[in-house]
Structure formats: structure tokens, C-alpha cells
């Protein structure tokens, strides 16, 4: 990664982060430092709190306690340098192209530059054919691609991806993984979740493992997949962590 592409808003430090809603503590004292550089993949069973953690980091939710600090040089306006792809894509009531164009216009890009960029994004995600379709009639997979295109279009320094390929066909999954790789190479920090362990292995430099709102393990990817320290994590990568079978006590 070249000096010029250094990530200006990182590192991101989260400290003793807790989140509560509906009278439950859903994120429990999570502490981690996201440095510039590696690709982070957050793993964990359904309902572990992965999506909540991403939304907390991205500033969409207010923590009940704890700190979220962007410590980079350009950290006075961190929101401008982030983007996120949601697990359940939200399409604005306009065409596919206009959805991307809208995101760009929010960053103050001028009309001509936007047009070029929109076309480039549509091409990279294979949506050119659908440019003028209303976004909300797209198939689920197409919507996921569009959400990625829209997030990526604004050239964020940090990109949060919440299961970006869950509904993509195998070829598209590979293509999008390549895209993610390219984005990473261009200096954008990737923080993502996935349930596809193969994908996690292919992409991750660093793995965070969450379970019931807690961050149980954070290790380099190789170490994690070879010999996870946490018992649950081990069960998880063997596809055996059926956590509803387990009494709460086993978490202690």
C-alpha cells in the first residue's frame, strides 16, 4: 500500500462498547482497535451482534456506553470517508443509475463526473443492462450488487460490508470478491461480515469472532482458522456451534 493511499481516518478504536435496545444488552463491552491495512472479517452465529457492531462503528447507532474513536489525521469528519453495504439493501425509489448518482451527489461531485462514475460502477457490478430499471424491482441479488456499487462509488476510506455476497450466485460472488480485493488494494479499509467460511478464508487478514454480543476472539486469519483459541469459535468453524442447544452458562 503506497504512502499516498494511507488511510487518513484510521485507526478506529472502540473501547468497552455496549449497546442496549428493547431492554436487552445486545453488545457487551467490545474493545478492539481497527488499524489501517488489513481486511477484517467478523464471524459469528446468527444474532451474535455482528450487524449491530458494524452499525455502531459506522455511527448509525448510539452506544449505551463505551467509546468509538477515529484517530486518523482526517478524523474530524469521519462520516464522509465511510460507506456501508447493509445486509438488507435499501433501494431508493428511483432507477438503478439514479441510486448511485444520488450517493455521488451527496459527496458534491459534479454532474459530468457523476455520469462517468455511475457507468463505471454499473459495469463493474454487471448492472449496466438494468441502469434504467426502477431499483426496487430488481432481484435480491441484483439489489445487493447495486448496494455495493453505490457504497463503493463514493470511494470511501473505510467500507463496511454486511454479508455482501449472501444472495449472489457463485460467479458473481467470485467477481465481487475480486472487486473487494481491488478496493482493498486501492487503500480502502474493508470491515465485513460473512457466513461463508470459504470466503472468510479467502478475504480475511484478521478475524473477529462474536458470540452473544461479546467479542470472544480477535486474531490474524491464519491463526484463527488453524487453531482458534476460543472453544465456541472452534465449534463455529466446524459448523457445530448450534448455540441454541447450549445453556447460557457455557458462555462464562
Amino acid at each position, binding site marked *: 500500500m503506497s504512502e499516498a493511499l494511507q488511510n487518513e481516518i484510521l485507526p478506529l478504536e472502540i473501547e468497552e462498547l455496549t449497546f442496549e435496545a428493547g431492554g436487552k444488552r445486545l453488545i457487551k463491552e467490545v474493545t478492539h482497535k481497527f488499524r489501517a491495512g488489513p481486511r477484517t472479517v467478523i464471524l459469528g452465529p446468527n444474532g451474535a451482534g455482528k450487524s449491530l457492531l458494524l452499525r455502531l462503528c459506522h455511527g448509525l447507532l448510539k452506544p449505551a456506553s463505551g467509546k468509538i474513536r477515529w484517530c486518523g489525521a482526517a478524523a474530524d469528519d469521519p462520516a464522509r470517508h465511510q*460507506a456501508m453495504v447493509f445486509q438488507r439493501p435499501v433501494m431508493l425509489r428511483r432507477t438503478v443509475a439514479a441510486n448511485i448518482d444520488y450517493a455521488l451527489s*451527496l459527496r458534491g461531485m459534479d454532474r459530468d463526473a457523476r455520469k462517468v462514475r455511475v457507468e463505471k460502477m454499473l459495469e463493474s457490478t454487471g448492472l449496466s443492462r438494468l441502469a434504467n430499471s426502477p431499483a426496487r424491482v430488481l432481484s435480491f441479488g441484483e439489489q445487493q450488487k447495486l448496494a455495493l456499487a453505490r457504497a463503493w462509488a463514493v470511494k470511501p476510506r473505510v467500507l463496511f460490508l454486511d454479508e455482501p455476497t449472501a444472495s449472489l450466485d457463485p460467479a458473481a460472488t467470485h467477481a465481487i470478491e475480486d472487486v473487494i480485493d481491488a478496493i482493498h488494494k486501492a487503500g480502502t479499509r474493508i470491515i465485513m461480515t460473512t457466513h461463508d467460511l470459504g470466503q472468510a478464508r479467502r478475504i480475511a487478514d484478521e478475524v473477529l469472532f462474536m458470540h452473544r454480543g461479546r467479542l470472544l476472539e480477535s486474531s490474524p486469519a491464519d491463526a484463527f482458522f488453524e487453531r482458534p483459541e476460543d472453544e465456541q469459535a472452534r465449534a463455529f468453524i466446524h459448523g457445530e456451534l448450534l448455540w441454541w442447544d447450549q445453556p447460557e452458562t457455557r458462555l462464562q
Partner: protein
Amino acid sequence: MNDFSSAFTAALSLLASGDADLAEIIALSLQVSLGAVFIATCIGMPLGAATALYKFPGRRTVVVILNALMGLPPVVVGLIVYLLLSRMGPFGVLGLLFTPTAMVFAQVILIVPIIAALSRQIVEDLWREYDEQLRSLGAGPLRCMATLLWDGRFSLLTAVLAGFGRASAEVGAVMIVGGNIDHVTRVMTTSIALEVSKGNLAMALGLGMVLIVLSLAINGSAFLLKESGLRKHA
């Protein structure tokens, strides 16, 4: 019952005669109520959207007040505007009392809360879906408002039509601030009230039918516009 049939005859012959007075009254009615709706939409929609979006202290109070003001009594509004525009009032020098401008002004006060309260509800429902996505894209509050109003425009149309319904049917406020002066501030609703007080019920009903037909025509056009828009933008 033959009141109804004679009303029908009255309505038809009114329309068929192409009466110049009636045309003048219809034109003024449309001018006043459409003008009021236009201005009230420009004020009420952003107001409603802002109340839906911003988390300011006292927001819930504002919501309740907007809802309650949907029930502003027209006579009271007319009276307040009268006092403001009266020669003795603070804006007396403008000489606006008993002019169409005063009527528009009173109606704007009446329907801003209706459009604002209904818009708030519609925008709030849409906001639940858009909230995180728009904030993630980096839309500031103003931009969020604009986006929600635009994306919700087909639903919001109903709020505007509710405002138009109130404006076009309203008689209490325009009667007081307009004075129902022949050829100057006489509109459909004040004419109807006049005919009722003359005991000319058939004519009153006939004018009422004409007013309802007008309202149907406007609502029909709005609906067609919306349908063609929906087809294009899904």
C-alpha cells in the same frame, strides 16, 4: 324530495347557461383554494418532514400540536386574520381585508397543520425504512428531508388533497375575512351559504353539486398525474 331534483336541474342549467357570474365565482374559488394549497404545501410539507426527522427537544409536543391544529376552527382563524388585517390591527395599513389575498391567508393557516400533520405521518413511515441508509450515504438533515419528500411524493399527494378538500369546502374563515362581497370575494362556498340564508335551497344544492364536480375534476387530474408518474418511477 323534489328539492333534490330541482337542485339537479338548477345545477345543470347553471352549468349549461355558462353564466358569467358563476364563471367568475368558480374562477375565484379555484384561485383562492389552489393558491392556499400551494402555499400551505410549501410550508406544511417541510414542516411535517422536519418534525418526522429531527430529534429536537419538544418534538413530541410539536407533533401533538400539529395534530390538534388539524382541528383549528375556521371561524376562529377567520377572526384572528380579521383582527390582524383590520384597519385597527397591526397590518391594517395594507388594506388587505375583504380581498382574495386575505382569504388565501386565512386558508393557509387552516390547512398548513393538515398538510404538515399528514406529511409527518407519511414521512415518518418512510423514514423508518430509509433512516440508516440515508445517514450512511452521508445525507444531511436537509437533504434527507428533500429525499423523503421526493420519494414519498405519491403518498404525500393524498395529504395535499386532504388540504385541498378542506380549503375548497371551507366557508367560515373566508366569509369573515372575505366578506362574501359580490364580484370581489364571493366564492362557491359563500354563495352556497348565501343561497341557504335566502331559503333558495335548490340553488344552494345546485351550487354544491357544481362544487363537488369541480373537486372531482381536480382530484381526477391529480390521480392521473400520479398514475403516470408511478408507472415511470415505480
